[in-house]
């Protein structure tokens, strides 16, 4: 138990901080911070599987997150019948053509020896395929996007419960990771970083501009929720009774009946949003715990030891008969799939999908700060990193505002410098992150909770 002492202290401090936010700001804010901490923790675990276990650098986290989000849309939104009838068939044919192209290229690669002729054949297949695709997909997308463009204008999804999308998101992200891994994993570390970053930008570009698939920058709103809605809760008697019981003492102090009723209504409205957030937090916590158990087991299994061996010296591991390329690809897919789950979770939490909001600062670099700060190679560290960094990311602006006001309190309200600083308070979060990352990398390069190797 002693070896876990610092883990416990670190998490205890984190929970106390969130509770403090609940007491001083509001419980809704505290719970949404907690929820996003949990989502970040899942993302960080995914990145940690790749970086901490295997030493693979993946700067494409943004792309996998967005694919997870897309999965949430495609699973939960009801299908748009009209769009399917005008363009659905064409789109399926297009999918068939792409599959056909892939298989014919594979066939050519296998059957014909490496030569100029082979390259020309492959180029011809790709160009011919693209031209056919354009001829079929061009009109089809126009038809689909013309169907009630203000509300739908896309194919819609399957109309299934949104919780399924957490699994589908994992498969989407894993599938992309398979392709990316096949292409890019042979590259040296920093090239892999650049290549994955750029590929994730391509993914975002596709999601943003293929309106027939994802509605693009028009966003998908009002996604179905796995937990009750606030309005329903406010009208259900059992919930009102529950709130009444919970605040019994306070309510009794108010003598006037109408005042008491007003106060109760206010309490119910507050409590309903807290209740919804709590339900989501419960769901997220289940995912985090399941993933934590699996990753812990994997880390201390023979497979985990092999991964560490590959990470520390891939040539030696190769000489011992381990298939480095295959294992790298496997772990790349697994880590990305975890990130995909997080992407679907996030869209589930927000209830909306906004492709325009996926930016590398927030979804790639911030996640990497979490991994490095928390402690790479240590799952508890990764989760802690997600918590600490997300907490700071949200709370940096209020703290900066407080500090600015404190240090410039002797200046008049109209002072130009003071007004400028107060306006730019939100950007202090970047400063906090940057300085935090630099300090951790310099003075505690293994993170807050460093990797522990348990001798077996």
């Amino acid at each position, binding site marked *: 138990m002693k070896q876990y002492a610092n883990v416990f202290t670190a998490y205890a401090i984190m929970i106390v901080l969130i509770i403090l936010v609940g007491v001083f700001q509001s419980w809704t804010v505290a719970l949404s911070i907690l929820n996003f901490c949990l989502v970040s923790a899942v993302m960080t675990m995914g990145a940690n599987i790749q970086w901490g276990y295997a030493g693979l650098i993946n700067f494409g986290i943004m792309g996998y997150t967005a694919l997870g989000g897309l999965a949430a849309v495609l699973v939960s939104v009801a299908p748009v019948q009209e769009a399917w009838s005008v363009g659905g068939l064409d789109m399926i044919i297009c999918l068939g053509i792409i599959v056909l192209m892939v298989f014919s290229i594979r066939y050519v690669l296998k059957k014909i020896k490496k030569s100029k002729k082979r390259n020309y054949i492959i180029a011809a297949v790709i160009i011919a395929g693209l031209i056919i695709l354009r001829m079929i997909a061009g009109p089809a997308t126009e038809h689909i996007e013309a169907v009630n463009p203000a509300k739908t204008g896309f194919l819609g999804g399957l109309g299934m419960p949104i919780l399924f999308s957490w699994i589908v998101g994992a498969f989407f992200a894993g599938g992309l990771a398979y392709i990316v891994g096949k292409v890019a994993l042979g590259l040296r*570390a*920093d*090239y892999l970083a650049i290549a994955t970053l750029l590929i994730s930008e391509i993914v975002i570009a596709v999601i943003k501009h293929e309106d027939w698939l994802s509605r693009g920058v028009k966003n998908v709103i009002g996604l179905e929720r796995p937990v009750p809605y606030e309005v329903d809760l406010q009208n259900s008697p059992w919930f009102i009774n529950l709130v009444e019981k919970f605040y019994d003492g306070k309510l009794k102090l108010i003598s006037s009946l109408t005042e008491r009723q007003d106060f109760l209504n206010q309490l119910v409205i507050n409590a309903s949003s807290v209740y919804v957030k709590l339900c989501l937090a419960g769901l997220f916590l289940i995912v985090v715990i399941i993933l934590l158990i699996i990753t812990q087991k994997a880390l201390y299994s023979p497979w985990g030891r092999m991964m560490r061996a590959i990470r520390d010296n891939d040539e030696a591991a190769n000489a011992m008969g381990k298939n480095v390329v295959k294992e790298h690809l496997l772990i790349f897919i697994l880590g990305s799939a975890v990130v995909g789950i997080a992407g679907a979770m996030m869209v589930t939490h927000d209830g909306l999908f906004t492709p325009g909001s996926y930016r590398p600062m927030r979804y790639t670099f911030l996640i990497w*700060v979490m991994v490095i700060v928390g402690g790479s190679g240590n799952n508890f560290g990764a989760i802690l990193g997600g918590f600490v960094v997300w907490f700071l990311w949200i709370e940096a602006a209020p703290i900066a505002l407080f500090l600015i006001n404190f240090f410039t309190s002797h200046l008049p309200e109209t002072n130009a410098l003071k007004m400028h600083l107060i306006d730019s308070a939100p950007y*202090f979060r*970047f400063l906090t*992150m940057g300085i935090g990352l630099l300090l951790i990398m*310099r003075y505690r390069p293994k993170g807050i909770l460093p990797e522990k190797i348990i001798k077996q």
Partner: protein
Amino acid sequence: MDFLNAIILLLNYIIVPALSYGSQLALGAIFVTLIYGILRFANFATGDMMSFGTMFAILLTWYFQSLGISLGVLPTALLAIPFAIIMMILYMLIIDKLVFRYYRIKKSPPVQLAMVSIGVLFVTQAIVRIIIGPFDRRFFDGERFILKANEFKEMTGLNEGLTIKSTQVLTIVVTIIVVSILFWFLNKTKTGKSMRAYSDNEDLALLSGIDPNRVVMITWMIAGVLATIGGVLYGLDKSFKPFVYFNNMLPIFAAAIVGGIGNPFGAFLGGYVIAFAEIFITYAYKKFLMYLLPESLEPDSLMQLLSTDYKFAVSFSILVIVLLFRPTGIFKGKVL
């Protein structure tokens, strides 16, 4: 006549814009490639360092404008560039001393340095946004056009107009001057040669008595010059917005790698490769073909290979293809 019209159309919409955009990318790509070749890491703070230098140029431009100083037809920003470069070099040297030096002496792996550069990225971005804000800034003054479409039409009697913005010419001219001086410096002077030697083989360079600290310092200084000039030229041509500069890092990386990383000349050409590819592939050729083809063959569609939304995606796809088939880049950089 139709043939001439078609050529002018291409010049106006593809070649002139691509040349100026390519020059801006080329300066950034040489910056990336120098840092990679000599300091041996991928600098993810590239875009933000460029916006940092530009920010100083903008602040100084505003100051000069308030004093009433101007260059007449030329933008005042040109006057501000030398001062901005000095500030930028100072910033780079401070960053190097506080951050990168430690890892260089420890001989950390390149990945760690790349991570550290992400820390620098966050800090630089924060400073820029705190000082000048995240908004769109225009700081161009002076004469906007060298050749206006209407004037050109009157002069030549063609249907198509040719517009040449002064910023485009300025970008191309300044880039050619800067790059020529740089290549002269790298190839002919003793310091430049020692830098190339250090980039080729660090140990051998140290054995021959090359002072690594001096090489590193000069690299950062050149990087500062390139970052500031590249950033200001981009800002003059389009506009200054920190987020856009951060995003520009991606095509710049693509240019550096396509050209062969570690090879300044490759990076220079890589910038143009990326710029031309982006614009060639996303241009709608309908009008162009209408001039060239007989009426019966005129296309109904836009004849666009990819919509302009995928402009960035084009350069990234080129990068992926190059990485797959020729990982050393088109012009033989370092072997990856």
